[in-house]
């Protein structure tokens, strides 16, 4: 008898969920909203600021070309290479800046931790796919561009279940 009761309970549980809100995020139309503007790091305190670890952003006016990000990455993904940039800055005599290969990057953000000059942060942009491997290598000029993101969907929880909307 308990078997029959269990079967009925299971069927009931299944049927009940026909009325629960669907959870699926319809991705290309909806995009999840993230906290903040991406992962950042404050070298003064040694503590990061929470945010999505997406593509990097490089501030040319702060980067000194000290290669610390490249050294940090060398043991991890070997994604960062230092390349020459055309214009010279007062604080960057050698005119070298990081160039990031997103085909190799694992988005751990330890390069951001390594940067002592507030020059390298991460952003909310995670849609980096391309048709060629070469297009995944972001030059310092590309890294300086602030990405445009339109992410507005959050998980909402109410009596009829959780849903993205």
């Amino acid at each position, binding site marked *: 008898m308990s078997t029959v009761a269990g079967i009925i309970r*299971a*069927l009931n*549980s*299944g*049927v009940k*969920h026909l009325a629960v809100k*669907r959870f*699926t995020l319809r991705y290309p139309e909806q995009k999840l909203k993230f906290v903040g503007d991406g992962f950042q790091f404050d070298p003064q305190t040694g503590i990061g600021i929470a945010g999505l670890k997406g593509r990097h952003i490089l501030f040319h006016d702060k980067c000194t070309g000290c290669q610390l990000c490249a050294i940090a990455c060398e043991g991890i993904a070997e994604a960062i290479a230092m390349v020459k940039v055309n214009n010279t800055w007062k604080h960057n005599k050698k005119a070298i800046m990081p160039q990031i290969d997103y085909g190799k990057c694992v988005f751990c953000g330890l390069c951001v931790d390594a940067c002592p000059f507030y020059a390298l942060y991460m952003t909310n942009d995670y849609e980096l796919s391309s048709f060629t491997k070469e297009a995944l290598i972001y030059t310092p000029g590309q890294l300086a561009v602030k990405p445009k993101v339109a992410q507005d969907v959050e998980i909402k929880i109410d009596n009829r279940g959780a849903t993205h909307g």
Partner: protein
Amino acid sequence: MSTIAPEFRLSRFIASLTDLIFWILVLFTLVGLPIVMIVLFYIELPVINGELLTPYLALTWLADPSRTLPIIKSLLYTDFFRIAAFPGFGFAALLASAIIFIERKFLAKMQLRVGPLYCGKVEGILQLMSDGLKLLSKEIIIPAKADKPIFWAAPLLFIGTAAALVSLIPVAPGWVVADIDVGILAVFAVIGFFPIITVLSSWASNSKFPFIGGIRALHQMISFEIPLILSLLGIVILTGTLNLTEIVESQQHYWWIIFMPIGAIVFFITLLAELERIPFDLPEAESEIVAGWLTEFSGMMYGLVQLGSYVKLYAFAALFTILFLGGWNGPMVWPPFPEEIITEGITMGPITVKIPGLPLLDQEMLNATLWFVIKTVVVIMVILLPRGVFPRIRIDLLLHTGWYKLIGLAFVNIFIALALLYAGVLGPGGLIQ
């Protein structure tokens, strides 16, 4: 960089088109025309309005719309139409594809998903079509050491047997492909083919996982066929007939499920097992034996087996409807055909069109079909429901269920039927007629 298609030349394109047209014409004259002639020679053509319908006359519907409907009507009553289209395979395949769509959306809803969404704009209604196209375009891979003729034949045999099962189902009064006196026995005979096909195909594929799956299917189907037959004996005892149409007609006032709920439950469970639906999908248990006896099928061969299994699902649901839920019986809800269209014709502005052949199908038949489809779809939904709720059962538990519990319950059902018969309540000469 990948290579792009070679340079486009219009002349070559036109040449290829003319080439194609040439070959089509050649094939049509050499093969198509003789076939048409032979068919026309042997087919007995109907008589419409006192004239024999020759191909010449058949083509006159293009010029005279009033001839169209009688021709269509005469076609509706040919055997070919019954086998291929309405109560036969076409109807079943259409319903089967609808079932697949319903199943996916229904299951998705239960699992808090969306299901097919993008294909066909409206909730992914064309998903099945795209799946079919995908399967058609896929390569068919045959294992190297397979027994090729049997392996090739297995999907065709499977879908053919499923269609044979469909041909025994009466959908509306008079609308059945094969109205035979031993209907239920014929059903059992056709069902008996499925394990043979399964074992043949699994043996022919010469692979371990299909072999285990085939053996499991054999075990499962054979051990569940006995309760399947026994569960229907009650109805046969009470109606005194094996003809499915007569069984439906015996349920004009009450359904057999009211008197034989145990039989209905046993039949439903065995039906799940025969259909290899969850929780009895052991022959296709993917986490144990990859895909069971379907492992080596690829491309459209797999598609045919899937289509066959859904046609089979429809046939079993229809059988349940016929035997326990009163078939096509139901209150008249179909609106009668408007009289003024027959008498006065359709007036569109200055033109009045008189269509003498209307109505094509009578109200009773449409109403019966409607009720039949509604009941069948409800049964199908109930068959689909366990897939979202239950896990797969184990083989020893399955056989235990089949041999011990279901056969016992089926005998209980037979005793109930006999008691009702001898008490004079039901059956020939009973109190309730």
